[in-house]
């Protein structure tokens, strides 16, 4: 069987993923491009005795070095040399889509153009003569509809044909006399000095004139580029002197000029633009007064559906695992092995699976919002607010809102942000949004100390989280993300009805990915924490004699200046790293209260990793007495602040690890949030003491 390697390329929102899913079905693999945070989707399928390997390139508008995605696509085309590149084009938006096509032609790629969304083009009154277009470009042009079978067979047949006899397209491109002339000059020098480059020298010449940093570096690295680079500088100066504009702009102009020529030959446009359905929807959705309420309403629904449907489902999973643990513990009897299986393994697996409903539902909703086109409007509506407040993109708002429910889906939602630095910065501040797992901790402490002002105290913590996030974002923008230019230049794609298949595949992919990547980390670390709590052999689980207890005892003086230097408070903080609500049950276990009442035996049903109680701890007088013994109102508040801000839980760090594809960012997040938490709690406690609280 013949093997053919193809790549799908195209602008964002042109139906690229839809086609990819249609071609490969479930036989696809999602990973990352080596060393990048950009997602890489691969799959295979068979057609007519050919095994076709497909790579879905990131959605790009261009192939400059503007974003990581562009560099990834470009390096793939140059380095991997796929047999055929299928360029999916939104027929209703031909000119801008062809800009990418032209750049792939410059690279000498073996292209097939797949015109998608022809129905929308017809609705707009556009008549595309695909034969004429194909003739002018020297590339086959096929009409398809990615959502159904239309054109599918013709496309596949053409792919096979073109893989056997590649198109020659380099000589089709025209840039006008001025650009062409200088391009040839540079090309000639490249061919003489550095002939062994793996990309066409005409492309290198263009990129050098465009001041492309990656290509300049590559040429410098050959050690033979002095003459070329000198010539390029001279030409760039010439452009500035003669046209008062840089060579870069002249080339972009020339490409669009070439496209304008193509389009005027091959497309008939209506005289007056029709008012589209999208325009009508936008009149309401981005309306001056209605826009923000509609946005908030949609956010409210997203939040409600995710957490009101997801949380109980997660709760059932949690209960199921607790039951499994208890049953096993009962039948196996007490012992080290039982504890390992029940607390370590079952607790760990349960801790992973609890998130599954949340993540599946969230991604279902997010993909519907994204595929329908609303997400771009949400960013449009909220951009000024986010930009003024935190210097972020309008799209950062959604992850932050979700963070109030749970930081894990919040962090996973950052992938809707195109700019890598925006994405990182958003990930770093999402954990400051007070998630629902912190609420039991507040509830317990507030009941013990602030019963008269419960609402206000809890509200102040939520507000504090937001304020800290804003300040931290401002600091990061001036330091580690300095010089990050994230302009808001975003397409508002036409509204479309999302496909069920697309939404479900999207949800499935993300859910499985979370399980595979984040799940293994959560599980592994849960076992580590279990081991620390159970060793040396024979100690009571999580007691002062255990390794965890000893660590807590050793570390506790660090927290003395924050008002909570007792080892129990420190151990609770260590367990809070598993999941923040565990702080509450840890106190329960350490003092032998709450939960199933009982004494201090190391039996499974009192393990700190369990959260359900017979009476809610905040209503348990025993709990309240312990809290009042351990804390003063001031130190209790400082403790809540610390729990709010310190190291995000295991699952959050695992999600950051998964999204950034490196340990660098989760480590950084853990360290810096600890510092922030320490500093803020310190200021509150010491400040409070000075003020006489």
């Amino acid at each position, binding site marked *: 069987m013949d093997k053919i390697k193809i790549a799908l390329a195209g602008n964002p929102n042109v139906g690229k993923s839809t086609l990819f899913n249609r071609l490969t079905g479930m036989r696809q693999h999602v990973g990352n491009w080596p060393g990048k945070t950009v997602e890489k989707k691969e799959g295979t399928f068979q057609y007519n005795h050919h095994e076709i390997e497909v790579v879905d390139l990131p959605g790009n*508008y*261009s192939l*400059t070095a*503007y974003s990581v995605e562009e560099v990834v696509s470009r390096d793939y085309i140059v380095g991997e040399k796929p047999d055929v590149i299928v360029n999916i084009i939104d027929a*209703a*938006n*031909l*000119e*801008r889509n062809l*800009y990418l096509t032209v750049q792939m032609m410059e690279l000498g790629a073996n292209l097939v153009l797949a015109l998608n969304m022809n129905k929308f083009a017809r609705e*707009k009154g556009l008549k595309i003569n695909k034969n004429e277009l194909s003739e002018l470009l020297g590339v086959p042009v096929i009409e398809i509809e990615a959502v159904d079978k239309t054109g599918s067979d013709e496309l596949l047949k053409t792919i096979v044909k073109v893989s056997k006899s590649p198109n020659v397209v380099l000589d089709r491109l025209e840039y006008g006399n001025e650009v062409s002339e200088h391009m040839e000059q540079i090309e000639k020098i490249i061919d003489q000095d550095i002939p062994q480059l793996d990309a066409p020298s005409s492309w290198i010449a263009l990129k050098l004139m465009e001041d492309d940093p990656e290509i300049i570096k590559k040429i410098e690295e050959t050690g033979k580029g002095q003459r070329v680079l000198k010539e390029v500088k001279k030409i760039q100066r010439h452009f500035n002197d003669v046209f008062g*504009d*840089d060579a*870069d*702009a002249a080339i*972009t*102009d020339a490409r*669009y000029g070439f496209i304008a020529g193509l389009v005027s030959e091959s497309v008939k*446009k209506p005289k007056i*633009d029709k008012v589209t359905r*999208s*325009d009508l929807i*936008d*009149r309401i959705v*981005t*309306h*001056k*007064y209605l*826009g*923000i309420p509609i946005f908030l309403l949609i956010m409210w629904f997203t939040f409600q559906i995710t957490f009101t449907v997801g949380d109980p489902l997660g709760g059932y999973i949690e209960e199921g695992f607790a039951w499994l643990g208890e049953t096993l513990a009962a039948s196996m009897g007490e012992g080290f092995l039982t504890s390992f299986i029940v607390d370590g393994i079952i607790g760990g697996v349960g801790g992973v699976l609890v998130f599954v409903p949340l993540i599946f539902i969230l991604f279902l909703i997010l993909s519907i919002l994204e595929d329908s086109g609303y997400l*771009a409007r949400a960013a*449009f*509506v909220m*951009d*000024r*607010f986010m*930009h003024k407040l935190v210097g972020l993109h309008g799209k950062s708002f959604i992850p932050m809102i979700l963070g109030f429910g749970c930081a894990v889906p919040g962090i996973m939602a950052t992938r809707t942000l195109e700019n890598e630095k925006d994405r990182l910065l958003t990930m770093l501040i999402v954990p400051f949004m007070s998630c629902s797992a912190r609420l039991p901790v507040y509830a317990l402490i507030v009941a013990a100390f602030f019963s008269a002002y419960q609402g206000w105290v809890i509200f102040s913590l939520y507000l504090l989280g937001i304020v800290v996030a804003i300040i931290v974002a401002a600091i990061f923008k001036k330091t580690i993300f300095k010089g990050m*230019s994230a*302009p*808001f*230049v*975003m*397409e*508002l*794609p*036409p509204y479309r009805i999302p496909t069920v298949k697309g939404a479900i595949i999207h949800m499935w992919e993300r859910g499985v990915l979370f399980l595979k990547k984040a799940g293994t980390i959560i599980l592994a670390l849960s076992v580590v924490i279990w081991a620390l709590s159970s060793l040396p052999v024979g100690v009571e689980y999580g007691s002062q004699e255990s390794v965890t207890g000893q660590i807590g005892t050793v570390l506790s003086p660090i927290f003395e200046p924050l008002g909570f230097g007792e080892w129990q408070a420190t151990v609770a903080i260590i367990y809070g790293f598993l999941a923040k609500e565990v702080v509450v049950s840890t106190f329960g276990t350490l003092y032998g209260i709450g939960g199933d009442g009982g004494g201090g035996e190391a039996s499974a049903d009192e393990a700190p990793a369990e959260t359900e109680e017979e009476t809610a701890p905040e209503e348990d007088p025993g709990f309240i007495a312990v809290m009042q013994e351990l804390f003063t109102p001031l130190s209790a508040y400082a403790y809540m602040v610390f729990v709010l801000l310190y190291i995000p839980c295991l699952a959050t760090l695992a999600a950051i690890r998964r999204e950034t594809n490196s340990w660098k960012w989760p480590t950084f997040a853990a360290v810096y949030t600890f510092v922030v938490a320490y500093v803020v709690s310190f200021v509150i406690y010491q400040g409070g003491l000075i003020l006489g609280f």
Partner: protein
Amino acid sequence: MIKTLNNLEKGENGVIRAFKGNSEVKKHLMEMGLVRGSDVKVERVAPLGDPIEVKIKGYSLSLRKEEAKQIEIEIK
């Protein structure tokens, strides 16, 4: 009459004549189709007054006024 793009009223249109300044954003905007000689129309302004939505080469693009300030439009 020449105006910068951020000063166009909702519904107003014109032809792109020049880019002021020389930022990295300029290149990106040009690649998105905001090249000289193209027709551009301001479709709407976001509820909070920024960004704006323009129609260019038959599609809708949004950008902040900060960036729109660099683009000079000739109103016919």
